[in-house]
């Protein structure tokens, strides 16, 4: 394949949360096919800076697919066209020379746009604060290995823990539902011994916060799981529903 390519980029620009945004088209040349998508945006930003223009703001951190910061909707797909790949892991060899690439932020009411491609995902933090944790006495050495756990449970919890909280599921969902995210956290925490103490309240509290934030309802479309860069299984939503119903049945409240 050729070493360098040129692209036409249609990028969403928005000054701040009160302003109206719009698409602006840029051309960029001499992009190495080995570069990542974010590195390409860095180069575009350097060009803009040299011309005295405000660079395109976007979230990023680890740049290797594990932190959940990057949040780009590329050509109508959360994190772009590749399966189980975050935007920062997406490499330019997947885009043809001369292609037009459309880049947008996550579009969901609970994720207001702060600037350009940066959205406010603190709604996820508030859902976690509502119940996505375990309480534990720290300080001493816990007897972690004394409680036997079947390997398939450990694996199921671990697979659910792979969720990086990026919000692609919300962006991909036509209703902006956060059920995959909440389901992943519930599955991760409620299956293991340490999560049992708060198990009964966890699902209800997290779902209550999720509704308060304005996330939509789940209609079993499955776009979330299909687009999830970590491949979180749609079944976590079933686990979440089961946890919620069980909690309602077994609740101490009358």
């Amino acid at each position, binding site marked *: 394949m050729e070493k360098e390519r040129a692209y036409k980029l249609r990028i969403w620009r928005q*000054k*701040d949360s009160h302003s109206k945004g719009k698409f602006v088209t840029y051309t960029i040349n001499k*992009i*190495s096919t*080995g*570069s*990542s998508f*974010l*590195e390409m945006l*860095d*180069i575009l930003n*350097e060009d803009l*800076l*040299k011309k*005295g*223009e*405000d*660079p395109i*703001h976007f979230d990023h*951190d680890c*740049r*290797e*697919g594990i932190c959940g*910061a990057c949040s780009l909707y590329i050509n109508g797909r959360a994190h772009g066209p*590749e399966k189980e*790949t975050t935007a920062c*892991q997406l*490499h330019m*060899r997947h885009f043809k020379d001369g292609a037009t690439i459309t880049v947008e932020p996550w579009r969901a009411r609970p994720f207001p746009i*702060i*600037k350009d491609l*940066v959205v406010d995902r603190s709604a996820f933090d508030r859902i976690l604060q509502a119940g996505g944790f375990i309480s534990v006495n*720290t*300080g001493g*050495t816990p007897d972690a290995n004394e409680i036997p756990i079947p390997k398939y449970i450990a694996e199921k919890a671990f697979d659910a823990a792979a969720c990086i909280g990026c919000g692609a599921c919300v962006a991909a969902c036509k209703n902006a539902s956060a059920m995959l995210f909440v389901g992943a956290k519930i599955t991760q925490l409620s299956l293991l011994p340490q999560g049992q103490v708060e198990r009964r309240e966890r699902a209800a509290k997290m779902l209550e916060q999720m509704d308060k934030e304005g996330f939509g309802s789940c209609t079993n479309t499955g776009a979330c799981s299909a687009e999830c860069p970590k491949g979180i299984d749609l079944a976590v939503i079933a686990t979440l529903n089961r946890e919620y119903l069980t909690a309602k049945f077994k609740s101490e409240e009358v």
Partner: protein
Amino acid sequence: MGSNATAIWRAHKRGALFANPCFTQIHPTCIPVHGDQQSKLTLMSESLRNDGRVWVPKTKELAGKIRKGEIKANDLREEERDYYLERIYPSFGNLVPRDVASRNAKHVCDEGRGVGETGLAVFLDFRDAIQRDGEDTIRSRYGNLFQMYEKITADNPYKVPMMIYPAIHYTMGGLWVDYNLMTTIPGLYAAGEANFSDHGSNRLGASALMQGLADGYFVLPYTIGDYLAHLGFENVTNELPEFKLAESEVRERISKLINTKGDRTVDEFHKALGKILWEYCGMSRNEEGLKKAKQEIRDLREEYWRRVKVIGTNEELNMTLEKALRVADFFELGELMVDDALYRRESCGGHFREESQTPEGEAKRDDENFSYVSAWEYQGGDSAEVLNKESLVFENVKLTQRSYK
């Protein structure tokens, strides 16, 4: 950019001693640089060295042919391959510590036997492990890592050897803390890799996780609670003179950067600074190089404050300003690293001084003169920092020369 010392550097400038800045870890198994446009070097997990075999071609001619694509790695017969770690260190082989593996990779590449387009890469080969254990076993162990490698390089590690090269990783230094994890600023605690405490001069695998857990789970619950119990909990408001002074200093710094209106971008300066440190304060250091680095950093820093270009205002989300403030810190930290490296005239852990090595080229410590932690104290402005030495006294352990042969 997100987690690169700015927080602890600013605490340092307000009175927290900074310990052991010269000990920087170079991780041996990173995906090699593909070009100037790169923003980071992706780490391949160290666990790969459990099964992979590190090698380069035996001769420069063969390496040259591989670099040009005239022959492929898999075409080389066993006698044409140099499994150099296994050859030099028979007992530890591919499992030598990170600094040893990194330095050896650098040596063979400096000799002209490196592979990859740039010549700055060595092979990490799973052919023998796959033959011995079967592809399925290797997949269950390293599947996600191999997938990550393929995403980035488009090479399939099940069929061709991986290419790796050393790259900058964590640092062992950080804020000086006592055994309760409190810095020299009363009430300021530093836990995990932000402090200097657990790693001495070198780090092993999974250390960041270990230190985060050790400090956060086991130590702080005892120590920070005790400190809080002695506090009065008086109300502290933004009206205090100390706060107002600190706020005005920050605003002045921001305003200086915004108003410079120069002609070079922050990233350009950041890359230039990085190159100086990688070249002179990287895997291998010497007095002449370090002195040169110190001057180059000073010159570049002076140029930065004259010519940096920051777009936008302070009152909006401004990533250029944020980067500019961080890079301003990096200049200062970089200079302290070089100073610390100059001062420590021995080779210890992640700090290798060419002037202090054994006849075989291994690191040679000088325990008589350098058995201490270097805790640097900020003096303000451009004044030289003051070195405080915390003696390291070993009562039950006998200090010896490291050997992995």
